[in-house]
Every structure is written in C-alpha cells, then in structure tokens.
C-alpha cells in the first residue's frame, strides 16, 4: 500500500450563477482591482492508502460523486499524487 493525496476540486457548472463569486468580484473592484471574471472552487485534499494511483483516484472519485460534489450543479476533477 502507498499513501496518496487525492485532490478533489469542485466547481459550479458553467452557467450556474455564483453569487459568492460575484460579490467577491465586486469587492475586489471596490479595492481598485481590474478583473473580467472570478470563479470560486472548493478543493479537498484526501490522504488515503491504496494499492496504486488508479485505486486511489477511483475512491476519491466516488467520494466526490457521493458527497463532496452535488452533480446537479457541480463539476469536479480528481488528481492523485503520492503523499
């Protein structure tokens, strides 16, 4: 077994309004920054023991599918690296 860190990034699907990101963008603009858009993602780092990277990725993928992301509004991606 090897210890891996699976990084799960969850973001709203394209086209789904993100009021928190919009509010943050406006706050940055109030501070004088110029920007076109701002997107907000959530990142989870999961340490787990697995036989290989594929297994680690599959398990993290299921975690995202069943809890970390809501498939109705979110897309997610999983990246695995040895811890």
């Amino acid at each position, binding site marked *: 077994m090897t210890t891996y860190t699976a990084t799960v990034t969850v973001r709203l699907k394209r086209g789904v309004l993100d*009021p*928190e990101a*919009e509010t943050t963008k406006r706050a940055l603009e109030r501070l004088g920054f110029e920007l076109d858009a701002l997107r907000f993602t959530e990142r989870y780092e999961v340490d787990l023991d697995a036989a290989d990277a594929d297994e680690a990725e599959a398990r993290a993928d299921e975690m995202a599918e*069943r809890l*970390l992301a*809501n498939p109705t509004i979110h897309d997610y991606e999983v990246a695995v690296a040895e811890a």
Partner: protein
Amino acid sequence: MIAVVQFGGSNCDRDAVRALSDLGFEAERVWHEDPLPEETTGIVLPGGFSYGDYLRGGAMAARSPIMKSVREAAEDGVPVLGVCNGAQIGCESGLTPGAFTTNASARFQCEHVYLRVENADTRWTAAYEEGEVIELPIAHGEGRFELDAERYEELEADDRILFRYCDAEGNVTDEANPNGSLGNVAGVLGDSESVAVLMPHPERASLPQLGNTDGRGVLAGFEG
C-alpha cells in the same frame, strides 16, 4: 403518527409538531440517530441548519443513516414533506429533483412571499385552487432552485412544480423571485406524488394566532 425528523441543528421541528397537532395529526419528533417508529404514517424533514450547513445546506443530513429509512418509507408510499432545510435535504438525497443553492442576492432572505399554486391535483395542494395565490414566510440563504434545462422541461411537462414565487396578483415575475430560483420554483414533487419539498414554511403559517393560516393546506396533505 407523523415523524418529524430532528437532526442536530434542526430548528423548525417543534413548530412542525405544533402545527400538525393543531390540524389534528398525531406528530412527534424523532431524533435522527433513532429508528423511524414502526407506526410512522408520514415524515417531515423540518427546517433549520442541520450539521451547521457544512459543505452545502442539507448535504450531511441527506447522507445520515435515517435517510435510508426515509427513502424506504417513501418508496412504500409514506408521504414525505421537506421544508426549507428539509427541502435541501430532499434534493441532496435524491428524493426530489434539482438543488437549492445560494440565493442570487447572496443574502439570507427572511420575508413573506406570495406563491402561485401550479398544480392543485396533489395531496399537498388539494386544499387550494390551481392559480390560487397564498402567502408564506421564507427564511433561507440557500433557496435558489437549480436544475439543468432538460430535466427542468421534464419537470414542467410532468406537472411536478407545486409552487412558484409570484406577486400578490399571481404574476410570476423576476421581481417576485426572492432568491433567483429557476422558473421561480419554490416547491416540487419527487418521483412520486407522495414526496414533496418546498423552501417556504407552511408550518409557520398554520396557527390562527399567528395571523396567517395559508400553510395549513400543505400540511393537510398528510391526510392523503
């Protein structure tokens, strides 16, 4: 007996029991770590902030063990009503379609709203006329209904939208939409007519002493 499931952080469970009792139902709170009583004839997923709204409103409660029993009961035809946080739990658990997410205003909205009854041919809306306008309170930060376009069309085609936010005259407008919900949707049916969720609070508008009893008709849905 109607089981009002109490999660850690639920705060509308007592209101639900009180309103249901006033309507003549036998109702009691059931702690989420306890099993559903065998004599359960109806289930309320009440409002509140279960698990502190960690991750997303309703996300944790939707994966708690009692929800397996709730799902099985729903499959057996036991009526299930999710209100506010209970509506988020319903959607997060897959009992009902869509998701309730951050209000377009990015603010917690606590106000009275008007709702147009879209489908009066369900147990939850039989007390109303189609097109009737009722007034209920809302109190939520994550109440914006979202669903992909294809499934939303199916929802409309299947007549599973119960209520839409509207103005006092029943016009469904952007101005009357408190949270940016897709199609001004405030409440929907699950796969079967016995399961429904809505963001507004019928139990807070069910006692004559509170000056508004428009919500009684929703709770009366437990009579079937």
